[in-house]
């Protein structure tokens, strides 16, 4: 099975792409892929604590996130500069490792495939 990295780079409630990508990541793990997820750019907004998707009649993104360890998706990363630029205090449940740009280059280089391209 391949090493797959999913990159989440859009804000969590602007469209359904992030939730759809997480579904694909879970299926990747079910198929015994070695799945990692990297949150960067506006994707890091999805890591804020105390989200209430119900107030805008959407699924709460952080609840989908918290299901990831159940699917054995445990390699979760966030872009440190993206978090710092937005002055965010992100939730660390599930556990997320902050990476510099150099570390992200190494993470991407170590994959067989990267999923979640944006223009």
């Amino acid at each position, binding site marked *: 099975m391949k090493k797959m990295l999913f990159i989440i780079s859009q804000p969590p409630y602007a469209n359904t792409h992030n939730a*759809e990508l997480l579904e*694909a990541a879970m*299926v990747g793990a079910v198929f015994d892929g070695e799945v990692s997820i990297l949150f960067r750019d506006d994707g890091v907004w999805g890591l804020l604590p105390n989200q209430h998707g119900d107030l805008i009649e959407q699924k709460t993104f952080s609840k989908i996130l918290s299901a990831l360890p159940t699917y054995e998706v445990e390699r979760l990363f966030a872009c440190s500069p993206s978090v710092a630029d937005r002055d965010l205090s992100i939730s660390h449940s599930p556990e997320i490792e902050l990476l510099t740009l150099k570390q992200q280059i190494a993470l991407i280089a170590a994959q067989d495939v990267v999923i979640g391209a944006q223009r």
Partner: protein
Amino acid sequence: MKYTLAIHGAPYASQSAQHGIAFAEALLRQAHTIERIFFFHEGVLQALSTPVAPQGEEDLLQKWQALSAQGVELAVCIASGIKRGVLSEEERARYEKTSNSLAEPFTLVGLGQLISAINEADRYIEFPA
């Protein structure tokens, strides 16, 4: 080489399909193989039977059908598809809607078909909106 492609954009709303189709045609001309083309996010709308091509633009559905005629599998994410109104006759009946909308020869499949196609292929290329 064996390729898997993913289309993420709606028809006539971005260049996602035009780029994907041109890339797929070039692959076949150069004797590469295409494991599967997977339609995800708004890309599922490519599988609608109902869009009307704007005047002066090429009919994307005909282009997809021509690729299929060359043996390329066109697979639509069922979870992304049905909520956006892309319904096979089977799904139309299941959800008791008045009309189906899935064009021939697209099929509605699970996300497992994306993962397995990525696994089988040497290269996976996305065409975002």
